């Protein structure tokens, strides 16, 4: 059995929820950042649709027509959101995410990311075994044997459900190949 794969839990679960929990980002900054990103996206998609053709052909609108005007509306709405966020009073700036919160979110996000990466090489069943066991052991502080046993039963039952009973195709890796599936 290989050890659990996430060594990147950025903060311990015991991080203080109390007084000195500073905001990493204010809600206003998040609003601004999202508005700018959406503006960019709208511009990109609008440009692509303009290239496809936004005019009216003899038989009705060309393929780019409908999405082009949607990107214009999207851009307008994001611009409105951007201006509104910029004009917002300083007093209304509550936290978008605090340091402790971000830590906890990362505790689940980073393992998920690793799980997706591992699925590509090891197949989904082995990767899910590693994810469940690792998460229970490292983040949940559950005894190692309990974590390993639970996740083994989970991965096996997933394999039986999808591979054998419902016959749904899943990404598989070297272990499944070894077992002849």
């Amino acid at each position: 059995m290989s050890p659990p794969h996430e060594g990147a839990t950025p903060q311990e679960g015991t991080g203080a929820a109390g007084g000195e929990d500073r905001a990493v980002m204010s809600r206003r900054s998040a609003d601004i950042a999202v508005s700018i990103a959406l503006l960019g996206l709208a511009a990109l998609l609008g440009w692509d649709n303009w290239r496809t053709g936004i005019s009216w052909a003899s038989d009705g609108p060309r393929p780019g027509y409908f999405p082009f005007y949607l990107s214009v509306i999207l851009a307008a709405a994001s611009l409105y959101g951007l201006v509104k966020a910029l004009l917002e009073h300083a007093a209304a700036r509550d936290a978008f995410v605090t340091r402790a919160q971000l830590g906890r979110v990362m505790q689940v996000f980073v393992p998920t990311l690793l799980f997706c990466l591992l699925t590509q090489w090891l197949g989904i069943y082995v990767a899910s075994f590693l994810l469940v066991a690792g998460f229970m052991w490292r983040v949940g502080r559950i005894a190692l044997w309990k974590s390993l046993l639970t996740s083994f039963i989970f991965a096996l039952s997933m394999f039986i459900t999808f591979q054998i009973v419902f016959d749904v195709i899943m990404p598989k890796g070297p272990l499944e190949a070894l077992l002849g599936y």
Partner: protein
Amino acid sequence: MEAFGLLLHGFQVLLTFKILALMLVGLVLGVFVGVLPGLGGPNGVAILLPLTFTMDPTSAIVMLSCIYWGALFGGAITSILFNIPGEAWSVATTFDGHPMAQQGRAAEALTAAFTSSFIGSLVAVLLITFLAPGIASFALRFGPPEFFAVYLLTFCSFVGLGKEDKHKTLISMCLGLLLAGVGMDTISGQLRMTFGWSELFRGINFLVAVIGLFGISEILLTMEERLALRGHAARISLRVVLQVWRELPRYWVTLLRSSAIGCWLGITPGGAIAASFMGYNLAKRFARDKESFGKGRIEGVFAPETAAHASGTAALLPMLALGIPGSGTAAILLGGLMVWGLNPGPLLFVEHKDFVWGLIASMYLGNVVGLVIVLSTVPLFTAVLRVPFAAIAPMIIVSCAIGAYAIQNAMFDIWLMLLFGIVGYVFKKISIPLAPFTLALVLGSRAEDAFRLSMIGAGGDVRVFWSNGLVGSITTLALVLLFWPLLSILAARLRRMPASIRPAG
């Protein structure tokens, strides 16, 4: 009485051992999904959808809708015992449900919640049974302009009637419509917005987006809040059930009012949350002693639960009759229909009688069986909540990934799911609503096709949307709803004018 005969036929379709077993499995899974923190109706249905890919459509929809009923029942358990609403529409249930549990009347509150959910659903199912076939046969006469007008009405009512910031609803909706257009254009066959990236040729699958937006983002949010689960134990005895049921007739006005509110708001999109609060507030307003609300009054459980479930069920009416989902979960069921190779819309009632009436019959049966299951097994499901979140969270993530992959057998979709998980997390935190996005993504290409086909038919003349009384009134209604906030401000100002003149004069 044609509907009655067809309904009986539906029950016949249902009464096979396989479908009944699937129903039971669906209900139990659904209650689990409803009870687990960070999951709920739409997430559960989206995650469990791949299980149904190899089934025939009727078995599949029966199982999925049972998951949905189960989740609706399950949401009440956590609201009452743990003060954690499993769904946004269970929030109003906590107002009086949790105080009841604190007073040791948990069993009573749960029985009240389950029973009123059952009544709410039943009223809505009756409505569907007798109204949906009529609406569908009426809609058979619809051409592309009429359909586009109905889609427009759906979108506009979201923007105009939604409680969120208008520009945020608009952003969410445009984004959904745009992403629906990615990939091959169905009319000209041209590729759009793919930037030469072959993974995008297939388009962005609706279900992949939903699993990310609801499933993954919910896990991130739950982790962030670090829920500490501390609840009240409950065991429902037959004596309590009978006692609550005996009291039931006294509250018939509340039950009826909440059912009506729920049915009405369920048919118009995005209604279940509004319905539950409205049901609660109206019950409070009409009560003689308003002070006792919020302190553990059984009526405060009856009112929101009935309304929420009536609305959750009624949301399936426009989905079945017109192919337009009334809620997020209905949108996912609609996505399922397409995966199973059915074309949602009024033709379903003609071409797939077994399917439609099987589904409607399963709503009756599923609610009865569901009521029995939840009443008898509450202790079992509350035990689920003692399983540490650290064990449940990764398992949910794995289920999400399996679901996302199974739809098109593409690794790319797992990455897309993760991306949508982040988007959903950020959007929820800055309160950009996700429901319009879901709706727009599932309806986007159909709305665009309807628009372009009507344009082709009319030779590019926009007046086609006012070409006859029907399409004209729908389009006008849509525009009125879109500008409703502006119109209501204007109306208020007009009304205030004489009022401001009067004191002077």
